[in-house]
């Protein structure tokens, strides 16, 4: 059990995490693949105080080294759900589960729009977790819609356990097994009645019983039911508190401007208030 769980390992999440550590509490940062982090991909940053002409990757490395030195624990993976129960938050991360007493959401911008047919077939062929549901599709045709950097690896794993996999994604997949057919398409539609029967990908139609949609992270409202949003962003007050007790948010997921300084500042406030929340709730 951690004092605070931070969802997202970008500047907002790491800033929140070191603030929690500065107040003597334990913290776990759950973070996806670096290649999905927009800062990591930024070539040059000139507007962050103290760091003139630096690459996003170099900046991330410094942030991360700082967090590690302060005793921030890190776990790689995609958080699928967060459920509050008796003053504890349960987080499912792939095949694992972690617990914390407070949560800071620092997921970055997550597009919440679903594909046609996706919501209707959730749990009836559509899945967001290859590790969880892959075994149920052994020997069956499945499609992997790869939007996250680790999607090719997940597709490979599904193939290895015996699924008949077709990969669909907007970009050339990096590291996909050569025996998995890949379809390049940005627009997809899940087809079928009660159950999934196929996936339309661009002009192609792939017959399948399962569709694994792998995004870099889950939309906040799906992560945590009841979370109040404002447009596409998480609604917060000046303390970076959301409408749910013990849940704070910081960085790009709370709104514009999508800048490192703003993310770090918000993370600082969120981490501070999360630690304070724990002191008050004892």
């Amino acid at each position, binding site marked *: 059990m951690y004092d605070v769980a931070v969802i997202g390992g970008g500047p907002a999440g790491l800033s929140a995490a070191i603030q929690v550590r500065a107040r003597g509490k334990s913290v776990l940062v759950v973070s996806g693949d670096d290649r999905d982090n927009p800062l990591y991909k930024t070539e040059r940053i000139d507007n962050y105080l103290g760091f003139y002409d630096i690459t996003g990757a170099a900046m991330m490395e410094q942030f991360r080294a700082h967090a590690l030195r302060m005793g921030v624990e890190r776990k790689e993976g995609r958080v699928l*759900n967060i459920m509050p129960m008796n003053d504890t938050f*349960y*987080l499912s991360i792939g095949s694992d589960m972690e617990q914390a007493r407070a949560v800071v959401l620092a997921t970055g911008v997550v597009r919440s729009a679903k594909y046609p047919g996706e919501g209707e077939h959730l*749990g*009836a062929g559509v899945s967001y977790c290859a590790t*969880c*549901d892959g075994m*149920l599709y052994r020997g069956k045709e499945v499609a992997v819609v790869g939007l996250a950097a680790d999607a090719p690896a997940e597709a490979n794993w599904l193939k290895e356990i015996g699924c008949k996999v077709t990969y669909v994604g907007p970009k050339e997949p990096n590291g996909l097994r050569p025996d998995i057919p890949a379809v390049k398409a940005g627009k997809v539609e899940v087809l079928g009645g009660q159950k999934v029967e196929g996936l339309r990908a661009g002009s192609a139609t792939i017959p399948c019983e399962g569709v694994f949609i792998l995004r870099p992270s889950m939309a906040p409202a799906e992560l945590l039911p009841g979370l109040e949003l404002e447009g596409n962003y998480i609604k917060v007050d000046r303390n970076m508190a959301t409408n749910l007790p013990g849940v704070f948010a910081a960085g790009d997921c709370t709104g514009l401007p999508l800048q490192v300084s703003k993310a770090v500042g918000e993370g600082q406030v969120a981490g501070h208030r999360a630690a304070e929340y724990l002191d008050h709730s004892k």
Partner: protein
Amino acid sequence: MAIIHLTQDGFDKATANGISMVDFWASWCGPCKMLAPVMEDLAGKYEGKALVGKVNVDDEPGLAMRFGVMSIPTVVFLKDGKEFDRKVGVMPASAYTSVLDANI
């Protein structure tokens, strides 16, 4: 009453009478681990009123197939052995108790 682990052999007999709530799960599923304490808790609360059971889909692929489980956790509700409702994915305890309370 502790939660009952159901297998192919005992399933029909165990769920033949009254209300049953069965959680289909596996050890490689994080959301299932999250649901486990909720189900344990409900097994105690509904003792004598409903059967609360678990099916490990890894050990019991036949039952998973019979109920068309395509995503775990899936919680299936039965009345006298017949399914009347199901919940797919992790939900707060109230999602399950509301179904139980309306049918007991």
